[in-house]
């Protein structure tokens, strides 16, 4: 289907601090692409550059075939963004916020009403449509933000921590909606703190650490790259450690060598293991 998001040598510095140190990546049209990283890894800065909100210090971005340097308006028309922070006008109602978003994205007037009805029903926003945004709980504000971001049927949808603040039921509903949107051809670029969310939804993920991409591939490829099987065990000092192996047999052989009283378990490697190893967080002695 071709590349729909392309970043080349993307860098961003703030007052001498290099928040993003050079990102090269391509996102294929029609995929759900996950962007993971610990706090301060440069995720938000990267997404703000990709969504035209922050100008990179250097590098090139192409969105839906449009270079942000030359065809900014066309690139903006191709994207929908649900920001991490609720970005609604709290002086007006939910309905007015959604309609304003559609007007700003130049949707034909006759399409706005039906589309708004369709999405408000999908998200269960019906009873809240004429309330002021200030009267809504965090979850309903989030849903309103999401409706705004998909109102104009963007080709690419950037979701920055979309399930933050949502209850389990709403989160699952949103996951279904993301899959449905993706099935209808929308490319999804998702950043999340919930690794199981990325593992469940994303065709490919990039793991960002200290401003650079340290791992990129499908969740399965990434898990296989460090070892299909993980053995978790407690070391002599009681500290929890893990080690990956290419197959179950190698894992069992390793467990047999550990002291009898060691707490240990064998399981399939998860994306969370990849994340911890790639970012050097928590487990420091892992590795194949």
């Amino acid at each position, binding site marked *: 289907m071709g590349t729909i998001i392309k970043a080349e040598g993307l860098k961003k510095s703030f007052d001498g601090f290099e928040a993003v140190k050079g990102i090269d990546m391509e996102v294929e049209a029609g995929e759900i692409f996950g962007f993971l990283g610990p706090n301060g890894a440069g995720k938000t800065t990267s997404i703000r550059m990709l969504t035209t909100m922050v100008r990179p210090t250097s590098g090139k971005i192409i969105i839906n075939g449009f270079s942000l340097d030359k065809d*900014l308006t066309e690139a903006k028309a191709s994207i929908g963004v649900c920001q991490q*922070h609720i970005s609604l006008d709290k002086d007006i109602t939910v309905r007015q916020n959604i309609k304003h978003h559609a007007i700003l994205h130049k949707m034909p007037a006759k399409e706005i009403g039906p589309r708004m009805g369709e999405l408000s029903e999908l998200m269960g926003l019906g009873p809240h449509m004429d309330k002021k945004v200030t009267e809504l709980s965090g979850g309903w504000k989030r849903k309103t933000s999401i409706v705004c971001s998909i109102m104009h049927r963007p080709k690419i949808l950037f979701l920055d921590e979309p399930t933050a603040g949502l209850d389990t039921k709403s989160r699952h509903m949103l996951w279904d909606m993301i899959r449905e949107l993706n099935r209808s051809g929308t490319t999804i670029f998702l950043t999340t703190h919930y690794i199981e969310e990325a593992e469940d939804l994303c065709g490919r993920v990039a793991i960002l650490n200290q401003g650079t991409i340290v791992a990129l591939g499908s969740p399965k490829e990434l898990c296989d790259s460090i070892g299909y099987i993980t053995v978790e065990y407690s070391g002599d000092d009681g500290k929890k450690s893990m080690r990956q192996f290419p197959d179950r047999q190698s894992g069992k052989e390793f467990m047999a060598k550990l002291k009898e009283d060691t707490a240990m378990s064998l399981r399939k490697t998860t994306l969370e293991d990849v994340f911890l190893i790639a970012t050097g967080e928590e487990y420091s002695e892992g590795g194949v």
Partner: protein
Amino acid sequence: MPRILDESYRVAWGDLCYFKENAPTILISCLIGPLLYLVAFGYGIGSGMESGIDGYIRFIIPGVISMATLSATFSFISSKILIQKLFYASFDELMLCPIRPSSVVLGKTLVGILRGICSCAIILAIGVLISPGIKVTAFLFLLVFISSLTFSLLGILAGLLAKKHNSLTVFSSLVIVPMTFFCGTIFDVSNVPAILGYAIYALPLTHPTEAIRAVMLDLPIPWLSVAAICVYCILFFVLDYCIIKRRSF
């Protein structure tokens, strides 16, 4: 409709919804100040003037109208921009839309212009009742429009530059409040010492005041002042444009 007007209306749509629903409160709040000046200065100080109350009221009405183009626009626009930028983050949403920065600037002035024109029209109606001799022409409305636009653009500039609400309050106390008193709204600038006069003529409110007064009192139009308002208008627009352009790509 030219693209820039179409896009500006799209930007202003949300603010216009708010204005429509809260018009009485908004208008009353921006009329109180100018009307108080009219009563307090016109009838209070005017009674002690050589020209008498009528003469001074005739003099002060254009000043109060000019003052309204500032008070009805600047603080409303600057605090709205600041709130939308810092607390609602809805200003970021604008930057994500396929709308050009020039349209964002103009769109954000529309509610200010509407407030300015509505306030001035009400004060003008009261002014005509109090002092029937004053002239009301289409050029007067053009001046009110340009002045409201200029101070709305200044409001956008202040809102964009302010990092916190306190900065706006300080700017208002140091620049806006003195401007409402010193820019010829309640006294004739030609009576002040020359050095102070230069400073007063450097302030943007002096020029609409002079021009509006000339139209309403049927005096020769001070074209230099009309040109000065236009220069300030263009200057504020360019500054707003550059700041918004610099915020994103």
